[in-house]
């Protein structure tokens, strides 16, 4: 154990306080100006004078105090309930320490493997894991499962870990006391627990306290719990939340409503689309400028009413973006008399790059697999960062691919990455393709890494190495020769082999 320590208050356990105080006062003034005080409560010291006597007595008092330390009285904290899940093995615990110290990108995989085996992290790993969750909120659900009840227990003692108290773990039960008296995070966790067993009761509980929740942030966090078990019965309450004072609350209500395609809200959005959009003369999609005075549209899109007149371009495009993002995608094929691909083509033909990006965003937000296929087909092997129009597309590539089942995802990528496609695009595509990759895709990548005549694109080659290190099942290490195929990228290649071997061991240990 290393670390800094705070000195204890030196007077805390002191006996014979009076003598010691007198010695200190004399020492401050100096024995040339003040006589050494008598210390009747200390044993006698050798006969001497002035400074010597004072130092003798000071040493005696110091040693006596160290030897006569009086214990404090302290109350043990309430212990936690035992976690019955088995702990991961010692090798896996050591591996986790290595990951936390220098290979953080592998942490999600470790957590996933442990969870899949029904194991929890060693209790000694809990503080370091809680620290990671404090830095990266995306890890929190997986971390909550790994640290289990011990992690929740420990988080109570450190304000930096407060977030964990709001994380649900499987098997959570509703605790009325937590709901009524707990911190915001704990109230949210209690509500989420009830939501998994009785969604209607949970919503009514929230509705009951809603008017009394003064802070918008608290309303938002509790409203988040409705994401679990969301259904048509929640529609009315969410409509109500669309009128909330807090913009974040309205935004959250909108994103929850977007997941209810048969709601009155969804029908209203379809109506807005039909009102403003149509097929243009050239076959492109035409969307008229959405009126600024339409309060109903602003409300349905959780947007603030425009402040200045005339409004700028940004406000107009924001309104269009929000409408396309949240209107159910099924309205477009009806309107244009074509399928998803046809709609995307029409959006492209409109000449408005932003409109097309809004469709991509809608597909990601609405998590629509059929539309994701259409978008991915349309993107094809084009390098996405050539023009501004596609930057948002590159950002969304991973999310689009995530919408496909892993087999289909890998097959799609395999089809796109034919030998004529440059390495840079390989790297970009593969980085967005979450694993575990299929054997066919993995073998295709391994062949590509060894293929002679790689050209001068060492950047792309490195990207491919990094993508494979993260997503390829580690068994494919066997297919990679021990000697790097190219000297100038040998470091990236060897790091890939390293990471795969590290992951291979990790899979064996868990």
């Amino acid at each position, binding site marked *: 154990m290393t670390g800094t320590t705070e000195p204890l208050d030196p007077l805390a356990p002191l006996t014979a306080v009076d003598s010691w105080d007198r010695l200190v006062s004399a020492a401050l003034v100096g024995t040339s100006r003040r006589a050494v005080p008598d210390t009747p409560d200390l044993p006698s010291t050798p006969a001497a004078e002035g400074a010597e006597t004072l130092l003798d007595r000071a040493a005696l008092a110091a040693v006596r105090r160290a030897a006569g*330390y009086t214990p404090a009285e302290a109350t043990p904290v309430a212990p936690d309930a035992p976690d019955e899940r088995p702990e991961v093995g010692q090798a896996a615990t050591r591996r986790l320490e290595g990951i936390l110290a220098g290979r953080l990108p592998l942490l999600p995989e470790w957590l996933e493997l442990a969870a899949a085996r029904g194991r929890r992290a060693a209790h000694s790993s809990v503080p370091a894991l809680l620290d990671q969750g404090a830095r990266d909120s995306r890890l929190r659900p997986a971390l909550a499962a790994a640290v289990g009840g011990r992690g929740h227990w420990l988080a109570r003692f450190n304000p930096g870990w407060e977030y964990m108290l709001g994380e649900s773990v499987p098997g959570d039960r509703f605790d009325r006391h937590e709901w009524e008296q707990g911190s915001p995070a704990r109230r949210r966790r209690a509500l989420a627990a009830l939501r998994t067993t009785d969604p209607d009761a949970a919503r009514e509980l929230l509705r009951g306290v809603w008017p009394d929740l003064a802070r918008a942030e608290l309303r938002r966090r509790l409203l988040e719990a409705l994401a679990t078990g969301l259904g048509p019965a929640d529609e009315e309450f969410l409509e109500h939340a669309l009128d909330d004072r807090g913009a974040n609350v309205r935004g959250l209500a909108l994103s929850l409503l977007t997941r209810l395609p048969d709601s009155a809200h969804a029908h209203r959005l379809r109506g807005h689309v039909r009102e403003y959009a149509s097929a243009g003369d050239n076959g492109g999609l035409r969307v008229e400028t959405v009126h600024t005075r339409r309060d109903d549209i602003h409300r349905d899109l959780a947007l603030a009413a425009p402040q200045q007149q005339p409004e700028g371009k940004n406000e107009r495009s924001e309104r269009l973006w929000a409408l396309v993002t949240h209107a159910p995608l099924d309205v477009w094929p009806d309107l244009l008399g074509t399928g998803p691909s046809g709609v995307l083509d029409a959006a492209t033909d409109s000449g408005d790059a932003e409109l097309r990006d809004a469709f991509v965003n809608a597909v990601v937000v609405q998590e629509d697999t059929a539309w994701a296929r259409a978008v991915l087909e349309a993107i094809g092997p084009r390098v996405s960062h050539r023009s501004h129009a596609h930057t948002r597309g590159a950002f969304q590539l991973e999310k689009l691919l995530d919408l496909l089942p892993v087999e289909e995802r890998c097959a799609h990528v395999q089809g796109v990455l034919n030998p004529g496609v440059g390495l840079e695009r390989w790297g970009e595509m593969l980085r967005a393709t979450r694993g575990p990759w299929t054997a066919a895709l993995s073998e295709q990548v391994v062949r590509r890494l060894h293929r002679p005549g790689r050209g001068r694109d060492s950047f792309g080659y490195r990207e491919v190495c990094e993508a494979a290190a993260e997503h390829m099942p580690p068994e494919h290490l066997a297919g990679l020769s021990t000697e790097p195929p190219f000297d100038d990228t040998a470091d990236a290649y060897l790091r890939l082999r390293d990471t795969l071997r590290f992951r291979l061991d990790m899979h064996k240990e868990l």
Partner: protein
Amino acid sequence: MSLSFRSVLHVSDRWSTDDVWALAPDPSSQKAAIKVAKGGSWPERGVVAAPSGGASAVWGECKGSGSKPYLAAVHLDGDGGPAFKCSCPSRKIPCKHVLALLALWAQDDVAVRAEKPEWVGSWLNGRAARRARAENGAPAAPADPAKAAQTLQKREEAVGAGLEELRTWLYDQVDAGLAEVPKQGYDHWDRMARRLTDAKARGASTLVSQLPSAARGDHWPERVLEQLGLLHLLVVGHRAGDALGERTRGAVRARVGITTRAEDVLAGGERVRDTWRVLGWRDVATPENDMRARRVWLRGAGTGRTALSLTFGRAGEAPATAFRVGTEVAAEFAFYPDGHRVVPLGDGDTGPAPEPGGGTVAEALDAFAAVLAEDPWQDAWPVVLDRAAPALPAGGGDRWHLADPTGAALPLASPDPWRLLAVTGGHPATVAAEWSPSHGLTPLTVWDRNGKAVSL
């Protein structure tokens, strides 16, 4: 904690290639090494296994352009980090051959071999011998005993003269009064500290150079007077010489900075054979230089004797030690004159150990008081508490304590003892800790519900 990845793992664990490249003196070395890092260039290569498993050294013979191969080797688990050797004329350390060899090893392309060439054996033996000599910073035993005795005599006289000056200096401070102490520049203390270093009393010198840090913060007058008093006690103790008991004299000499050589301890120190249970370890910065010391505390199962093993490593490197928490070793130890620090004789038989027997807070404080009777300067002593639970002060406050079943508690040195809390979950457990009345309790090891020892 800002430890690098390497120092977290045991030194002899396999490295990653990034660890290898981190050693490269410049980017061109790495490029050159990658060209040489091919199995075909190294017809002879092997790993020397470490006794604890893992690798102790890696060696190889690299085909060059000339007729003779280049002989490259790396000693991985030596004191003070890895050491390199290569017969090539390059002045870079490590050279490309060493880097290439390590890269091959990191790629799992160098196997353990029982036999090793003569040049590897003699290099490693030479290093082991130097390490044994260097263990206490003392030179090899000189050939002429009369001259050695004379040197020793001179040294004792120098130390005595230095401490007499310290005594006068201490009286001057107290006569003049301590009120101005916080305003003194470092120079004020450094002059005395340097004088003591010149007088070969490095320990006393360090104690003086720590005074300015005591002169800061709340209660500085108490802390400064306490330390001046204890320094004075040290001067008095040194002058008393043989009139003191052997252990107290040993403690005085060690604190003044008069080193006792490991050879002398092995030759003449008290020997105790026992089954030594590892209580725990802790790394501390050494004040003299940029080194880290690892304190391993052990307790004899039969004798109840406390033993301290000290090893050193460069900053950023974990000091090597043979003792692991949760084990015990049947061995003979030779004790330094202070009666605590030991030199192990041979490796001994190591096996898993049960939980050490612990006691109450009162018993721990009694044991510490008994230690102070022999060594009044002692400020870190191992205690084992039975059924100790993390606790908060009865009267309020957020300083963590460890409480025994009677409710008596000792404050923890660290404000955030999270690992201890995480392992116990608030349940009572056996805890081995270092006790310091000035800093508090520093837990070293906790035994979890299944009796497994966890280092903190």
